[in-house]
């Protein structure tokens, strides 16, 4: 069945930016601290912090404190939920078509 409670807008909105997508790809390999996240990009640390806030709001990443550093890690379950949503949507249509076929057969009789 379709689970309606998912905030797809937030997820897709966060993925709309190439820098944010790149950050997510890099986090698939390993956790990073905030300066490591920022290092490859030619933008201010403040701009990176803003990107991280958006990703955190969509629950695509989480931050935790380790000593003086903030560690950024992927939250893969959010992606899994989005994938599950698409699968459920497919399942909904599959069942709908099954029932339509059954309905058309019964009507004939």
């Amino acid at each position: 069945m379709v689970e309606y409670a998912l905030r797809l807008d937030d997820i897709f909105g966060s993925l709309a930016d190439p820098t944010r997508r790149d950050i997510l790809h890099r986090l698939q390999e390993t956790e990073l601290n905030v300066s490591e996240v920022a290092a490859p990009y030619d933008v201010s640390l403040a701009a990176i912090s803003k990107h991280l806030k958006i990703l955190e709001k969509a629950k695509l990443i989480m931050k935790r404190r380790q000593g003086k550093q903030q560690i950024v890690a992927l939250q893969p379950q959010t992606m899994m939920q989005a994938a599950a949503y698409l699968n459920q949507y497919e399942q909904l249509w599959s069942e709908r078509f099954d029932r339509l076929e059954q309905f058309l057969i019964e009507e004939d009789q």
Partner: protein
Amino acid sequence: MSKMNVIKDAENKTLIFERIFEAPRARVWKAWTTAEQIAKWWGPRGWVTTVKEFDFRAGGHLLYAMKCEDPAQGDFYGREEWAKSVYETIDEPSSFSYKDYFTDEDGTVNQTMPSMTITMEFTETPEGTKVSSKTVFASQDAYEQTVAMGVVEGVGQTWDRLEELLGED
């Protein structure tokens, strides 16, 4: 029973579901476009569809509830979901399109949920009537939506592989 064909068309930002029904096109069209008939099959297995409002014309809408009446579905049992289809174009008997919204029972749209545009096509083939449902997910930027779907799919595959790997133990 024929199987549903799924086409994930990232290039055109769409998801397409197709299936062939052994019935005349006019018959299939009627099942999609009359309230009494929609109510009999629209919901998933174990869910009962009740049509509250129906006006099949461009700009008109279908407002309906789906209620789960199957105790075997656990948490879903007793749950009621309201939704609205707002018809955009109608070209009888070959196609119509609508926007799909989650609503409350008065038809007030829930803005926090994703809305989608769905185009239905009905084509005569030698095997029967081919029904095709094409969904375009709403997004501020359709291109980015595609990327998102690609990313989602990629991650899904990664996890599939991981599960295979774990299963080998």
